């Protein structure tokens, strides 16, 4: 097998979940690279959408902003935020990618504050479009480092809804049925969510890591999927496309 770094591993793992003909709302960085990789390999009909209005662009280079001119370069439509968000609210977008300073066992995300909201110790940007993406897309994907300060028992602030406090909570709160966190991809593992308890569980562990490694870097108890496996490594072809076509200047994979 070829050599690859952690970022390459995460991007390749994420890309595989984006099946042909799906629509995905992305931000900048690794999610955008994953979507581009999927599009250039197994999912030529993947529809890439940016919250500021760019729909299905031919991305010439990595965008530095979800609203910069790359995000609608040779796009099929340069629209606006409401049109994109409402396309998602109508149920036409399958995946979204999100991040955050904290994530908990139900996949709730915090990108607002550390500490008390009224007198925050640390202030972060806030929701941006994250809450909207996490409410409207069918499936939420997260790419983030495995770190117990990041994977916490309880996020200080739920900016974006995961499964909230467990089974049925999204529906009870009024969120569209059938939506929620899908995969969390880290430098060590791919985690999904237990269908019954809606708790995060390890589904595959990357080569060189163990379940214990993952648990040791997580601030809450992880479940383990009965079908636990090793995450397939990036293929030579995936790495070639990623390095030559998706991110030739190593903006993302060079991090």
């Amino acid at each position, binding site marked *: 097998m070829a050599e690859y770094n952690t970022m390459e591993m995460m991007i390749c793992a994420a890309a595989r979940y984006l099946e*042909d*003909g*799906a*629509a995905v709302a992305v931000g900048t960085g690794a999610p955008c690279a994953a979507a581009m990789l999927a599009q250039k390999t197994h999912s030529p*009909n993947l*529809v890439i959408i940016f919250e500021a209005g760019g*729909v*299905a*662009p*031919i991305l010439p280079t990595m965008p530095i902003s979800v609203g910069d001119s790359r995000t*609608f370069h*040779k*796009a*099929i*439509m*340069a*629209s606006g935020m*409401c*049109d994109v968000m*409402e*396309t*998602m*609210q*109508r*149920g*036409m977008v*399958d995946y979204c990618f999100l991040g955050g300073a904290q994530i908990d066992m139900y996949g709730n995300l915090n990108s607002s504050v550390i500490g008390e909201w009224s007198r925050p110790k640390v202030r972060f940007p806030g929701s941006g479009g994250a809450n909207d993406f996490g409410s*409207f897309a*069918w499936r939420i994907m997260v790419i983030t480092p495995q770190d117990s300060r990041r994977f916490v028992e309880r996020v200080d602030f739920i900016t974006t809804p995961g499964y909230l406090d467990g089974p049925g909570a999204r529906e009870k709160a009024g969120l*569209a*049925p*059938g939506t929620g966190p899908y995969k969390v991809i880290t430098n060590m593992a791919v985690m999904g969510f237990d269908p019954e308890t809606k708790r995060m569980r390890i589904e595959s562990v990357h080569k060189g890591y163990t379940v214990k490694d993952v648990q040791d870097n997580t601030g809450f108890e992880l479940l383990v999927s009965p079908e636990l496996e090793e995450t397939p490594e990036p293929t030579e072809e995936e790495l070639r496309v990623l390095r030559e076509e998706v991110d030739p200047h190593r903006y993302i994979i060079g991090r």
Partner: protein
Amino acid sequence: MLEVVAEGSGPLFMDPDPDKAREFFRKKNRAMVSKVMSVREAVEKFVHDGDYLAIGGFGANRIPTAVCHEIVRQRKKNLIFAGHTSTHDFQILAAGEVFDRCDIAYIIGLEARGLSPNARRYMESGKVQVCEWSNYAMALRLKAAAMGVSFLPGRNLMGTDTFRNSAAKVVRCPFTDKLFVLYPALWPDVAAIHVHEADVYGNCRIKGISVADLELARAAKRLIITTEKLVPNEVIRQDPTSTVIPYFLVDAVCEVPFGSYPGNMPYEYFSDEEHLKQWLTVEKDPEEFRRFLDKYIYGVDDFNQYLELCGGIERIMQLRAQEHLILNTNRG
């Protein structure tokens, strides 16, 4: 549940549940594949008896005439029609008696040209169950659907019989304590819109007013596009600002030059006022109207044959001159 202060007693023909719509749109194909087909095929595949149908454009301006004709020719039945900004399209569909339920905002009339005797007879026959709205009310219902929510508020219809015979409800705003009408979302089963340019995938451009077609395209579960001409995808991608309907909303793309005839197509050709007058005239006598329909709709295979009967390219050239004000006085 919001306390309902007042509610109309008209029938609500379509379910405003956004989750059912989400389930439908989740499965809608998003692959960028050619959807080019004939109008006949598009109507066969995407317009089913009993469907809720909506037609784009305004009155006799930028309307998908070929789709209206084909629906009549294929003798579709029991449709529910969105009688929203509809004039000649309504007249055609009423001629075929293809619908038996109708949301009314504007029907029967052809604006300054007068009322359609046949459409009026049909609407007075008792064969059609109706519900009352206004143009903006219907546009709001489509906008709610396009936004993926089950209702939108407005400050119209209040206090009127239009409201009392609608299916809208009045509630109080929890922020201001003021009254608002809530309109239920409308997801039509199928819609047809005529545009200036589309690529084979269904990315569309419209020149001039868009009426309520941007909302309609997003609200409709299935969407038939007729286009004055097909353009390469590269042309669309060169200027993404001009795309108003993205391909993933579209199910069929039919190239129909002069497709809004006898209606007006902005920047292309003006309406054929003589032919529209002929419709209004022959409709006075049901027997004569039957012969007229046999000749112009039932008796032809497609829209091109209809165009030929109406004077073909020669007539279009005259209407193009009128549109461009080349013969300013020659308005029929």
